C-alpha cells in the first residue's frame, strides 16, 4: 500500500499537518522514532504569548492562539487545558525599557494589540508583580497550555481522521524511486507519494537524506517548576529580552522558562541542568514575582528547540525534490504550531495558503552543493 503522504516526526507540526491532510481526504502515515509529542512539543513551557513571538510570526501566532484555546472544537474533544489571560512583558532598567518600546512597536505593527503601561497599571493587571518594574508591555491576548497533554490531545483526533500513527518507528533514510518515496524503517519499508519532514532539531539529518544541506542550530532550553503554592500571579509574565516566561497553573504550580540553556545536543537530547543557569533563571523569576521566594522547586528538565540561520521558520516545499515538504524551526514554534500545520496542509493539497509559507530556498543558497 502506498500512502498519499508520510509525515516523519509526530510533534505538534507533524500532528497538525497530518490531521489537516487526512481531513482533506488523504491517506496519511505519521511516523516517529519515539512516542507522539514526547520531545519539544510535550516538554516546552506551553506559553501562548505574543510578546515572545518574532514580529514576523505574530499573524500566525494570533490565529494559533485561537486554535489552542478552542482545540476541543476542532480536535474531537482533545485539549491541552489552554488558558487565555493577559500577558505582561516587563523592564527593570532603562535599557530594557528602550528594548521593550522597540519590540512592542514592531509587534504592534504586526498585529499584536500590545500597549505600554505604567508600573502602577501593570500591578493592577498583575498584583503579584515586583515594584521594581519601570515599564511593561501589556497584551490582552496571551495565555498558556499544559504542553505535556499535547500528544494525548492530538491522538484521538488523528485516529478518528484515519491517520495511521506509527510510534517507535524510526526512519533511517528515504529513497525516491519513480514518483514515490520509500521510507526505510526497522519494521520494514513504508511507501508514500509525498513526504513531510517534521523532525524538529533532527531536521538537518532528515534533509540530508534528500541531499539537501539545511543547517539547524540546537537550543537546549531549561525549564523549572515549583510545587503547588497559593495563587501568586494571574497573567503570563515575561521580560523585555524574552528570557523569562512565567505562569501559574490552576493546580498552583508555577512554571519558569525563558530559554536559559542547559547541557545536551541532538544526539543525546537534553542531559543536564546547568546549575548556574538554573539559579539565574529562578532569580530572574523571583525578581519579577517576589512571592516565588517562598516556593520550593520540584523539578527541572530540558527541551530541544530548533533554529535556522535567520531564526525564521522552514516551512514549504523542498527545492528540487518533488513531493517532499518540510515544516519546523518555528521560533516559539509551539505557540504557532497548530496553525502552521494547517497552512502547510493547504499548500500540499494544492490550495493557496491563507498566509505565506516560509520556503527554505533562502537558507540553502549559500550552501548549495
Amino acid at each position, binding site marked *: 500500500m502506498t500512502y498519499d503522504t508520510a509525515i516523519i516526526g509526530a510533534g505538534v507540526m507533524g500532528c497538525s499537518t497530518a490531521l489537516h491532510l487526512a481531513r482533506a481526504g488523504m491517506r496519511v502515515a505519521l511516523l516517529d522514532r519515539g*512516542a*507522539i*509529542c*514526547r520531545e519539544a512539543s*510535550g516538554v516546552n513551557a506551553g506559553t501562548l504569548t505574543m510578546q*515572545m513571538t*518574532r*514580529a514576523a510570526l505574530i499573524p500566525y501566532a494570533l490565529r494559533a492562539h485561537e486554535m489552542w484555546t478552542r482545540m476541543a472544537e476542532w480536535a474531537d474533544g482533545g485539549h491541552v487545558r489552554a488558558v487565555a489571560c493577559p500577558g505582561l512583558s516587563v523592564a*527593570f*532598567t532603562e535599557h530594557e525599557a528602550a528594548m521593550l518600546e*522597540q519590540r512592542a512597536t*514592531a509587534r504592534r505593527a504586526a498585529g499584536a494589540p500590545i500597549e505600554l503601561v505604567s508600573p502602577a497599571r501593570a500591578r493592577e493587571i498583575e498584583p503579584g508583580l515586583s515594584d*521594581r518594574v519601570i515599564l511593561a508591555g501589556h497584551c490582552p491576548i496571551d495565555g498558556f497550555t499544559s504542553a*505535556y*497533554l499535547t*500528544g*494525548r490531545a492530538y*491522538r*484521538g483526533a488523528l485516529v478518528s481522521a484515519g491517520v495511521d*500513527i506509527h*510510534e*517507535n518507528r524510526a526512519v533511517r533514510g528515504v529513497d525516491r524511486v519513480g514518483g514515490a518515496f520509500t521510507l526505510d524503517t526497522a519494521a520494514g519499508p513504508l511507501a508514500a507519494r509525498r513526504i513531510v519532514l517534521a523532525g524538529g532539531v533532527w531536521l538537518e539529518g532528515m534533509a540530508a537524506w534528500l541531499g539537501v544541506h539545511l543547517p539547524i542550530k540546537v537550543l537546549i532550553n531549561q525549564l523549572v517548576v*515549583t*510545587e503547588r503554592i497559593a495563587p501568586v500571579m494571574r497573567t503570563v509574565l515575561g*521580560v*523585555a*529580552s*524574552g*528570557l523569562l516566561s512565567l505562569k501559574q497553573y490552576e493546580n498552583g504550580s508555577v512554571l519558569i522558562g525563558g*530559554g536559559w*540553556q542547559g*547541557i545536551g*545536543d541532538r544526539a*543525546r537530547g537534553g*542531559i*543536564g*541542568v*546547568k*546549575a*548556574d*543557569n*538554573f*539559579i*539565574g533563571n*529562578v*532569580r530572574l523569576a*523571583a*525578581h519579577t514575582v517576589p512571592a*516565588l*521566594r*517562598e*516556593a*520550593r*522547586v*520540584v*523539578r*527541572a*528538565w530540558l527541551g530541544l528547540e530548533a533554529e535556522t540561520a535567520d*531564526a525564521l521558520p522552514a516551512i514549504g516545499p523542498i527545492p528540487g525534490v518533488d513531493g517532499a515538504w518540510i515544516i519546523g524551526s518555528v*521560533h516559539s514554534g509551539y505557540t504557532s504550531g497548530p496553525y502552521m500545520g494547517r497552512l502547510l496542509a493547504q499548500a500540499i493539497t494544492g490550495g493557496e495558503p491563507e498566509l505565506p509559507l516560509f520556503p527554505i530556498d533562502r537558507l540553502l543558497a549559500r550552501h548549495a552543493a
Partner: protein
Amino acid sequence: MIWDIAVLGAGPAGMAASAEAARHGARVMLLEESPAPGGQVYRASPAGFTVPRDADGRAGDALRAALAESGAKLRTGCRVWGLGGGPLVPEGAPAAPFRLDALDAEGTPFTAEARALVLCPGTTERVIPFPGWTTPGVLGLAAATILLKSAGVLPGRRAVVSGAGPLLYAVAAKLLKAGCEVAAVVDLASAAEWARALPALAARPDLLAQGAAWRARLLRARVPVLAAHSVVAAEGGEAVARVRVAPVSGGAERVFDCDTLLVGHGLSPATEATRAFRAAHRYAPESGGWVPVTDADGRTSVVRLYVAGDGAGVRGAAAAPAGGRLAALAALRDLGLITASEHDTTRAAPMRDHASAARAGAAMARVMAIRPALVAAIPRDCVVCRCEGVTRAEIEHALDDGAEDMNQLKQFTRCGMGPCQGRVCGEAAAELVAARVGGRERAGFATGRLPLRPVPMAALLGEFDYADIPVPAPAPL
C-alpha cells in the same frame, strides 16, 4: 578544592566506603541527609532521645567509630539537590569532575566537586496502593522503624502490621516490646515462601535466631499472624479505625480494629541519582526493581561513578559495608591512588564478606519482590499517585489513549510529577503500564530529573542584585 571521592549517603555502605577510601589516603567527602550517619538500619538517635542499644545499634556504632577515625570529611543534615559533571558535559568535552549542589544543615547552599562519586542511596519502601492507604494513621514499615528506633516513639496504641519481608516481624516485635498492642501481622508471603528462604539463611544463625525471637514474642502475645494475606482496605474517617484483610488467593475477610496500619510491600533501590547521570539500568525484581548495571566492584556504566549497598540491588545492611569497601577500592584503583596489586590484595576480603552476607540478603529481597497480583487488585477508583491524585482508572484511561511507557504516562496523567517525583507511586504505576505493554523493561522508568529533593527557592536565590543575574543575549525580534 576537588575531592578525590565524594560519597552520597552515610548508611552502612557509605560509612564503610568513606572510611576505606580515607584510610588509603584519599580526600573523601561524605554527604548525608540525616542529622547523623547510620542509615535506616543503623540509625542514630537525634539529640535529646535515648534509645536502648541493641545489636543494630552496636554495629552502627562500630561503623560510625571507624568513619570518625578514618579522616573522611562528613557533612550531615545536608540536602543534595543537584548533580552534574561526570558525563553531563557538552558534546565533545572531556568528562568533568562530579559536581554536587547541596544545602547544608542551616539551609546555606554549597557545592562539592570530586573526581569520583560513590552513590549509597539505599532504598525506597514500596507501598502498593489499596483503598484507604492515604488515610492518616497509615504509615510505612520504614517510617515506623524510624520512629521506634531513633526516637522511641510509638506510631499508635493498637497496630496492624502488614506487607512483606523481615521488617514486618521486626516492627511487630519492637512494637510489642515498646508497649504497643499488635492486632495482627498480615504477611503477603506464605509459609512455603519463608521455608524456601531458609537454606540461604543457614549461614546466618544470628539472623535465624533473631527471626525466631521475633516470632516467639508474637506467639507469646497471641498476636494473629496471617500468612499469605493482604490488606484489602483501611477504613475510618479522619484516621484509620479498622483494617480489612483477606487471603491473597481470595476468601473470607477478617476485620481488625486499630489506630495505625503499618505497611510495606518491600524495598526498591533508590535510582534517582544513577538515572540523573544516565547510567545503564536493568530490571531485576529479585533485587527490588530497577538497579544500575554494575560490575562486581560497584562500577556503573558511567566512568568513575559507583554504587554500593541496597541502592545497587537489595542485599541488606549486613552486606552493605563490604559493598561499600569494594566500591571505594575500585574508585581508588581507577583514580590511580592504589596499584593493581594493592587492589587485588585488598578486595579479596570484602569480596568474600559480601558474597556471604549477600546470600541471606538476596533471599530476603526475593520475599520482598514486587507481587504483580497485588497491583492487579488495585480498585479502579483507588488513588495511585497521591501527590497528583491520579487514580488507577485515570492511568488505565491514559493507557487506552496510547501511553506506552512511564514517561508518556507521566505526561498524559501527571502521575509522578508531584513533590515525591514518583518515588511512592512509581512501582505500582509501572506495573500497571507493564501489564499492558508486556513487561517492566518496555514500561521503562521516568527520566531522572533534578532536583533530587524539593529545594526551597529562597535558599537557591540567596541575596542578589538584578545586575548580577547573567541574563543571556536577547531572543531575536
